[in-house]
């Protein structure tokens, strides 16, 4: 029953995505992002990319990425059956919030599931807040999920188990850091420690 009502909600919500290449340098003067030498991260500021999407959060409420303007957004893709990468990244961001203290109010973690068929709203609503009550899990239809992922250059593919009908999902594990103006600034590879993530977050704060 819960699954059926979730699906119908997706139908009504009509998620959408738009990509705006904004000429923000002219108006806002964003330059390249200084990445400390010892930290692995890819500066994508020069693209001046502002992405937006509408997805459903783990409470079933529509959320646009642009709703979080004014905050730094740390966004990544994953799925709850992921035993390694996803809980590792989520746990690292729990530590990031702790290290930031009151500054953490200006940072929003968004987790977009690449497995909406199995990651129901119910499962996401248990799983994501178990890490931190302020983290938000997002989901949509498989089609919309793919569009959002493509906009970020994220790929994911199902890999079938040899023994039965179950599957795992290979997926891009970058964390995307988006500044308070909504500009995509940094792509951070998997397994960066919390203190490095904190430095990067402080770097892109206006």
């Amino acid at each position: 029953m819960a699954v059926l009502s979730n699906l119908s909600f997706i139908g009504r919500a009509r998620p959408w995505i738009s990509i705006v290449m904004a000429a923000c340098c002219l108006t806002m003067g964003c330059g390249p992002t200084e990445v400390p030498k010892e930290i692995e991260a890819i500066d994508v500021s020069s693209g001046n990319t502002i992405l937006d999407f509408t997805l459903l959060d783990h409470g079933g409420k529509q959320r646009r990425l642009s709703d979080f303007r004014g905050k730094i957004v740390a966004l990544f893709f994953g799925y709850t059956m992921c035993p390694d990468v996803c809980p590792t990244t989520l746990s690292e961001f729990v530590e990031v919030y702790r290290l930031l203290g009151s500054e953490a109010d200006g940072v929003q973690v968004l987790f977009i599931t690449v497995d909406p068929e199995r990651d129901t709203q119910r499962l996401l609503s248990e799983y994501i807040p178990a890490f931190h009550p302020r983290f938000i899990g997002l989901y949509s239809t498989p089609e919309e999920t793919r569009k959002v992922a493509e906009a970020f250059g994220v790929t994911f593919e199902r890999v079938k188990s040899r023994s039965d009908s179950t599957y795992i999902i290979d997926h891009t594990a970058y964390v995307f850091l988006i500044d308070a103006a909504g500009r995509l600034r940094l792509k951070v590879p998997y397994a960066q420690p919390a203190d490095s993530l904190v430095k990067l977050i402080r770097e892109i704060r206006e």
Partner: protein
Amino acid sequence: MGKKFIAFGLALVATFQVNCAYSEVSVKDAWMRATTPTQTAGGAFMSISSSNGLTLVGASSPLAGRLEFHEMRDDHGIMRMRRIEQISIPANTVTQLAPNAFHVMLMDIKQQLLEGSSVPLTLTLVDANGFRVDIPVNVKVVPVSTRVPHEHQHREW
């Protein structure tokens, strides 16, 4: 928070006879994250060492319908996870089943795994002569947001 790092010394040493020689197998620091009521899968991590070269060929648990060994690879930012049939445990080195490397995947988990509980696991290992041994392991269930010590996060390929 330091205490969120995994730090426990759950050691299990099993000794068994292999062709008149003794092989000493030690499985330490076995852990997995707590699950939510609806979650049915999770990865278990541990350190395994042996005085003789062995191969890990099987795992079972009364709390999970199916167990597999998985290997992770970072392929230019895409994390690829693959099922593998076995994991070799070379003699006298510690083989880490750790994030970004190997794990035992528990699927069809039959009950919610609460922080502080443990999951019984039986590992099956064989030596070069085909001698087979089952080793019981208690996997400690740690808080979901437990961080992985950083030295275990990176693996060169």
